């Protein structure tokens, strides 16, 4: 993408040494898509094994490596970098800045990612196999009882943590210092707002994850006992530290998705976002609450009842700001002039499925009921509704929405809509039955299951293959668009789109806003 007559160096050095936010954004997006396919491949192995009861394709130990790597690659390799890529492309263009505030660091924060994941993936070929303790890597399964490859896993986590922190610092520094004159905080597009808050969350909690894996490393190699009762430590401490990172992490994944949806729904409703200010406050409240709810992942660990009650009430509270957001989006659509191009379809899909995931989240927050839900497929269904139908659907919507701006070519609408419908149906065939088997008592992370779960698991696997295949259609559509899509040259590709990024030429030139733009009108009224 970009145009080759102005700016970029030629050949591989363009990509290796680039400090251009658009180039770096592009690399993040392609890298995360590659990781999405890799994580998806692991998921296909899982679903193929679970197609029928009995062990058919892989051994139980390898199955655990697949679930672990699927989770790690999807969370840290696919979803998070994809939104960083989006931020790189869009934040400077949305706030009228020529580039990110720290372009050299931007280059580093991307280029340390591929080696980290290469290292993580290489553990598959090591003695004892890849990490097999789940993406939550609870001690002592991940310390005393782990394969030797755990050291490489720890190092990979450190590197990608550093990458995330550098990326976040850059985003915050950009938003705080590079806004065009007149672009006050409360005029910023919501995507910038959600990313600003997300970046603060990342700066606060990625070091906590780094601390947790450092303790693991010390326990494994230097004889400390942070997580081993034998030396006065406690394996439950690991869970507290992990989820102190892990719960904000969940919002790190979903908040930028909220931002995307808040840009796209107004565009295709041809109506300003309803309740801009309340959206900002709701996002901030969700971020704040995310620090005081972590132990709701640990209701069965044997906490004192006061702890259970505190975390239950705090978790239930999250429903309030989340509800506000959903109501605001629907009010934005209300009495608009709606049209249903692919990005809008994905946003509506997001709205429906994310809300379902929110409902199951509310059910899971109820501590006594969670004693029955905990660590079953009900939980698996819940978090795939929020992570896949939430984060991935909104990311897909974002690609369809901004791709024409980036490369000056329009994607194939029919193929886009087909992609949506196959994704939507495939996703629901995959994950809706998982609510049923979970409630009926099927634990998660098992390679084989009792016969009464067989039918729904087969259904789930069929859905997963459909959903997986639909992503290849997406890849084809994107590549075909970049190579040979129909040219578009309108600055505003979508008639309802608002914001500074739609005031630059299409395709977006290599350098934009070298002179700060005039901020036209409050974005609150986009």
């Amino acid at each position, binding site marked *: 993408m970009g145009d080759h007559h102005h700016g970029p160096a030629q050949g591989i050095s363009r990509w290796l040494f680039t400090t251009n936010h658009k180039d770096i954004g592009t690399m993040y997006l392609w890298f995360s898509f590659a990781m999405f396919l890799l994580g998806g491949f692991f998921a296909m192995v899982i679903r193929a094994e679970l197609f029928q009861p*009995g062990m058919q394709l892989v051994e139980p130990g390898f199955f655990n490596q697949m679930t672990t790597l699927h989770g790690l690659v999807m969370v840290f390799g696919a979803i998070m970098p994809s939104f960083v890529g989006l931020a790189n492309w869009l934040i400077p263009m949305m706030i009228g800045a020529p580039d990110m505030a720290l372009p050299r660091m931007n280059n580093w924060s991307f280029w340390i990612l591929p080696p980290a994941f290469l290292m993580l993936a290489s553990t598959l070929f090591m003695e004892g196999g890849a990490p097999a303790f789940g993406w939550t890597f609870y001690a002592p399964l991940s310390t005393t009882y782990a394969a030797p490859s755990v050291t490489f896993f720890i190092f990979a986590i450190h590197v990608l943590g550093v990458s995330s922190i550098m990326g976040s610092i850059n985003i915050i520094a950009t938003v705080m210092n590079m806004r065009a004159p007149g672009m006050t905080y409360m005029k910023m597009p919501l995507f910038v707002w959600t990313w600003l808050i997300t970046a603060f969350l990342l700066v606060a909690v990625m070091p906590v994850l780094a601390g947790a894996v450092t303790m693991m490393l010390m326990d494994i190699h230097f004889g400390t006992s942070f997580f081993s009762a034998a030396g006065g430590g406690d394996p439950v401490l690991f869970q507290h530290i992990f989820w102190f990172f892990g719960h904000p992490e969940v919002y790190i994944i979903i908040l930028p998705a909220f931002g995307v949806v808040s840009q796209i729904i107004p565009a295709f409703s041809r109506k300003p976002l309803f309740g801009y200010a309340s959206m900002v406050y709701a996002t901030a409240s969700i971020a704040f609450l995310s620090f005081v709810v972590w132990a709701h992942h640990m209701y069965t660990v044997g906490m004192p009842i006061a702890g259970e009650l505190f975390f239950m009430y705090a978790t239930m509270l999250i429903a309030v700001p989340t509800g506000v957001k959903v109501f605001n989006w629907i009010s934005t659509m209300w009495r608009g*002039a*709606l049209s249903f191009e692919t990005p809008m379809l994905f946003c509506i899909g997001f709205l429906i499925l994310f809300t379902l995931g929110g409902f199951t989240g509310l059910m899971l927050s109820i501590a006594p009921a969670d004693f029955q839900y905990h660590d079953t497929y009900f939980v698996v269904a819940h978090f795939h509704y929020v992570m896949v139908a939430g984060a991935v659907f909104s990311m897909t919507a974002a690609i369809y929405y901004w791709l024409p701006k980036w490369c000056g070519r329009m994607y194939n609408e029919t193929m886009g809509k087909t992609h949506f419908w196959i994704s939507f149906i495939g996703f629901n065939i995959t994950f809706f039955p998982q609510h049923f088997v979970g409630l009926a008592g099927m634990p998660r992370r098992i390679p084989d299951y*009792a016969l009464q779960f067989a039918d729904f698991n087969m259904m789930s696997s069929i859905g997963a293959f459909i959903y997986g295949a639909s992503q290849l259609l997406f890849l084809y559509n994107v590549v075909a668009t970049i190579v040979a899509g129909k040219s578009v040259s309108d600055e505003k590709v979508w008639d309802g789109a608002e914001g500074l990024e739609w005031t630059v030429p299409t395709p977006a030139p290599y350098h934009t806003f070298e002179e700060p733009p005039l901020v036209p009108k409050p974005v609150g009224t986009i």
Partner: protein
Amino acid sequence: MRKRVAGLILAFLSPMSVAQNQVNMSPGVTEIGADIFELHMLIMWICVVIGIAVFAVMFYSIYAHRKSKGHQAAQFHESTKVEVAWTVVPFLILIAMAVPATSTLLEVYDNDEAELDILITGYQWKWKYEYLDESGEPVAFFSNLATPQEEIYNTDQKGDNYLLEVDEPLVLPTNTKVRFLVTANDVIHSWWVPEIAVKRDAIPGFINEAWTRVPEEGIYRGQCTELCGAYHGFMPVEVHAVSRPEFDAWMAAKRGDLTGMTNG
């Protein structure tokens, strides 16, 4: 496989064949299980009602406010009144949910005196049960998966209780308050029997507590629910609830053949 697909269709047609394709939580047999089930259903129905209301508005808008029908976009974009309303109303609904949730939780945490104490220890990959309130050497035994490898590797027909059967089940007397002390030998496990609504993490070095009172005789099955290594999926729980006299007879027989079973 074709048979299974046909079975699936059949299952949707006849809601009575629940055992095969159960779609909801089981109310179980215990009082707490029933309370949790009711709580679960209550919250679920509240969510369903809210969901229908919210989606009805959305779909009406999708239907009626289409550009293709020539609908002109209004330009309103804020209203403090509605924002306050949809902050306060959900909050009140949450309070209504928190009340029964709190009382059920208090029940789970009840620690009235139990008549029987059982130490449950998770191992990679089996459970050990130890009956504590007996004088002398306690009755203790391991409970291993009984499903043969041939069934798991598909060379033999799978039995009805595939992966949910053990060589020696945990035997409990009915109508007796039983306290479980749960711990682990190596990594973290979690002991779960859905029908009696007990799930507790087993943590190496520390003990956790749970309790039950099973009113009905029967066989209740469950599984380990915390990833504990390669064979996490192969360490089921099987509980036989029997009448008090039957239990006493079983215990006497067990004590009779206490042989060479020591810790570990």
